[in-house]
């Protein structure tokens, strides 16, 4: 019940946030969406004919055949004519909105012979990735796309349209729950890893791939949202950041030395089971160097280093300790 009250508080904050625009701007005068709705509403619901003249807005001509794509574009970010940066808002050579031609280029021949002739830029499998990306890059060049050029996805000739869908109302790769399905198209091993018994909450939709990755290019090796692996992990696990009095070198070096963040069979997402993982670096006198096997399982009583957490049954502060007596990560 407490969580419900806490959630109620959370919601109250959110409601207040959303009440702001309503109070500040209760109703925007005039018709706001109706013109767009006239174009976008499906025929079965309501479909007044397009009001704009084809001569003024070349995209309207495209809607004659590509109605679904056109309608969906019209209700998307790209279809906001009030935003001068969008294809719908951009002023073309003749002062017209470019609409479809902003990305597809000239389509005069295509309209004369729709079967044999294609628009200047087609987004099909035969088109080179760099040609498909040109229209996107003509606007989306800064911000998160700044490091696209030379990035792993660019180097492997990934096209923007391989991941993004602009002709549907909601792009699946921009929704947290549906995003992994897009990434799994190529990263199939990761799909399998997320099914492991110990994994981040990707499978249940609390995280998306972009919670950690920045697919448009970064300075690091694995397209992470931060410059390094550890900086990325610290965005949620800041308690592991330190610095600590007693540092554990592999933890300071890179979290993935021990963890496989996509999921493993070895909780908590360890690359290798304890105590064997620890013994790949630690071979000290007595128990750290002992060989562990079925001899250490019940009913034998020598499983203190192997059962449950293994070595961290005692060495619990394995990410680093700030206790003056924590040199062996036991405090």
């Amino acid at each position, binding site marked *: *019940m407490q*969580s419900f009250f*806490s959630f109620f508080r*959370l919601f109250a904050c*959110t409601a207040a946030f*959303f009440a702001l625009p*309503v109070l500040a701007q209760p109703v925007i005068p005039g018709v706001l*969406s109706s013109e*767009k709705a006239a174009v*976008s*509403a499906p025929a079965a*619901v309501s479909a007044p004919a397009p009001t704009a003249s084809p001569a003024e807005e070349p995209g309207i001509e495209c809607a004659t055949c590509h109605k679904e794509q056109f309608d969906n574009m019209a*209700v998307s970010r790209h279809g*906001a004519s*009030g935003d001068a940066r*969008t294809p719908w808002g951009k002023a073309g050579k003749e002062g017209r909105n470019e609409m479809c031609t902003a990305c597809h280029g000239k389509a005069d021949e295509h309209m004369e012979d729709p079967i044999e002739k294609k628009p200047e830029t087609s987004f099909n499998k035969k088109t080179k990735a760099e040609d498909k990306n040109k229209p996107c890059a003509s606007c989306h060049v*800064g*911000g998160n796309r700044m*490091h696209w*050029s*030379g990035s792993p996805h660019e*180097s*492997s000739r990934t096209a923007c349209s391989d991941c993004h869908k602009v002709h549907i*109302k909601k792009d699946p790769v921009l929704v947290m*729950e*549906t995003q992994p399905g897009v990434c799994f198209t190529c990263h*199939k091993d990761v*799909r*399998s890893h997320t099914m492991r*018994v110990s994994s981040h909450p990707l*499978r*249940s939709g*609390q995280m998306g791939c972009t919670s950690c990755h920045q697919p448009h290019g970064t*300075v690091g090796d694995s397209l992470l949202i931060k410059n390094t692996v550890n900086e990325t992990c*610290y*965005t949620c696990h*800041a308690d592991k950041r*330190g*610095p*600590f009095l007693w*540092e554990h070198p592999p933890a300071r*070096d890179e979290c993935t*030395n021990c963890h496989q963040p996509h999921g493993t069979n070895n909780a908590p997402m360890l690359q290798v089971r304890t105590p064997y993982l620890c013994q790949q670096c*630690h*071979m000290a*006198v*007595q128990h750290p*160097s002992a*060989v*562990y096997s079925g001899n250490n*399982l019940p009913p034998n009583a020598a*499983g203190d280093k192997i*059962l449950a957490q*293994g070595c961290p049954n005692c*060495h*619990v502060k394995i990410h680093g*300790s700030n206790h*003056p007596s924590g*040199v062996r990560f*036991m405090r």
Partner: protein
Amino acid sequence: MKKISSKKSVFTKRPLALALVSTLFLSSGAALAEPMLMIPLTNNADMSRYDTNYIELGGFYSSKDAGKFGEWTGVTKKGTYGIGHLNFADRNDQTASYYNLLGRNLGLDSRQVSGNFGTQGKYGLSAEVAQIKHLTSDTTRFIFEGAGGNALTLPAGFAGVPGQPPASADVISGALQPHDIRQKRDIYKIGGNVFFGGTMEALVNYRYDDRGGTGLTGGAMGNTGGNPRSVLMPLPLNDHTQQIEAKLRWNTDKAQLEGMYYFSKYSNNVDSLTWQNPYNAIAGWVPDSGFPTGHGRMGLMPDNLYHQFQLSGGYNFTPITRLTGVASYGMMRQNDAFLPYAVDTNGIAFNTELPRKSLDGKVDNTLLDLKLTTRFFDKLNVKASYGYNNVNNKTPTDLYSYIAGDTTDQVVIPPGTAPNDVNSVRLRYNKAPSRVQNKFRLDTSYSLAAGYSVRGYYNYKKTDYKPSIDEPRDYTEDNIFGLELRKRASAWATGSLKYEYQQRRGSDYDSRRPYEAGYTDGTTTAGLFDVLPTMRPFLVADYDQSKVKTMLFVTPADALTFSLTGDWYQRDYKGPGCGGPNDQLLQPGNVMDNRCVGRQRGIGQSYTIDGQWSPLDGLSAYAFYTWSQFKTDQNGRSYTNTGPTAADPTRDWTASLDNRGNTIGVGARYVPEERNFDIGVQYVWNSDKSPVDTWAGPGLVAPTAMPDAKYRTDYVQLYGSYMLNEKLKLRFSAAYAHLRGSDWKYDNTTASSTNSVILPEQVTARYNDYLLGLSIAYIF
């Protein structure tokens, strides 16, 4: 379904009022709606939840307790659950104004409400509230009272454990009390952006994470030398993290610039955990440190702070030549007050003051990255980059006279003797490891005829360890060569084949260095060592690695797509060579041979066959199978002293750790055109096995076989919807979720299964759950 864009105003009050009412209803605990418990596994998701305005209410029933199944969602117990989803969105094309409100899984313990509004190209504001619950185990039992707090006590009437838990099974089992290990994280986010003119944009995002609950930890008393005893116990979690990211962007077609400031502050509300020692004092402990007077105290994660300043930029010299760069400076700080060396109630003799009251920990991280991309002759793409990363640990180092697990007197430093000359393993210097990396990359690709292209690349990375006296090597160098052949999509096929060779080498390996840097001179001259000198930790060891990656996508017909992907690599660790002079730290007469210990080999591979089929309009189906493996082989030597046994090759052992997984997914969805229903089914089967094989030489007790740790999950779901009328949509979902596991980490264990650790009786996760849900969506 009606489109998101309706004829109504974008900012009418009605959707907000409905959202408020519906969420209040859900928050009151009503049982409603279909859960979203498994994400779509392929790129054919039903997006109607996100592109339609609706409120969905309903309920579902879970037939069994299934803690692991609901570990992240909260569907952990048998019973009825309520869930609501909502989505309100609208945008106006003429003013470019928009708003969006999305609620997910509102009736579950893990839920989220997010939204944003603004005007494209002018400003935007966003907010999100999310609660994530995580159940680690609902089978754990502990001997302590006060779980979740920072002081754990033993129940009245508890008799001390006389050192060996199996002999005290009754004492332990009589005190056990159930306590689930679960955590909650509430996340609040708010952000905004505003555009200035046509080229400038300012963005600010704030995130607050509030974490609570309990984790699992171990409280050890005593230390090395055969006298440690531990008990697993609940770890209190009560902390929060604040993050601010502010960016200023300037974008033109020719050049782009972004300045960023990032701030992160971690605050822990609990500085330590104290527990009552359940063990009677044993040899080597001061008497009062045992039960009932003895206590242990561990430090919890200290508060810390991070500032980062970053400048990123890109410049197009020509349409095909671009330079990008990043310069970043980050500062990690930690200065929490130290706890004392030990609790002061155990009768311990304290002889030395702490060298300082807090660490004054400082690590500065400087990063520079420059990348130039260009093209020659329209076919040759060239990319060159340089990266520099300096992790400079400025934390002061001092000598600490540590107390072993709250049970021993502090070492006595004789008057007139310099502490550094004292021979004691309990006198230790902290280390401040730093490193500098320089990276260079060259990547070229050339377009051949018929859609083929070939790519070659070379990466070089040098890591200097500073101060090198703390590290076994001064530096390591990595060289990577790669070659890739790619065939661009023809009418029916596209694919690639990549081979990569990676090699790491470095300076001489001196196994004495880390030991000498951490201990007093008086100790190191006694001829001891901390880790077998022939250990080559995989972090800095030499290795050779080969990697092959292949991908083939085939589209034999418009309705059918197949893909085959494969990844394989093998990494062989090569030392550097063992048994040299630097490895001979043993007592006279004992010679280390040239057999290295540590990780020797790593193998990873994954192969997938995947198909998607759309035989009819509205009908789509998929199937995939993945086999994957990650395996490591390692060498060890079991020794009981730093003399004869350490040099005895008959005490060698090996271990091979394998992880093999099989995943199958099958699904189909039918959305007939002009009909008022849709239906879908998905099935996921996953089976993992983790065998461990060990071998030991004749000087050791022969190891016996380990049972394989195995987990097998099945998840099958039938789902669909039916349009009752234009406004109402009925959704249904029936699912079966099953996990069968056997894991030697937990199987057949009781709290008193081992000699020196009291276990929490955690049970290997299993479940067998049926779920049935029905919900109704009001669409507007």
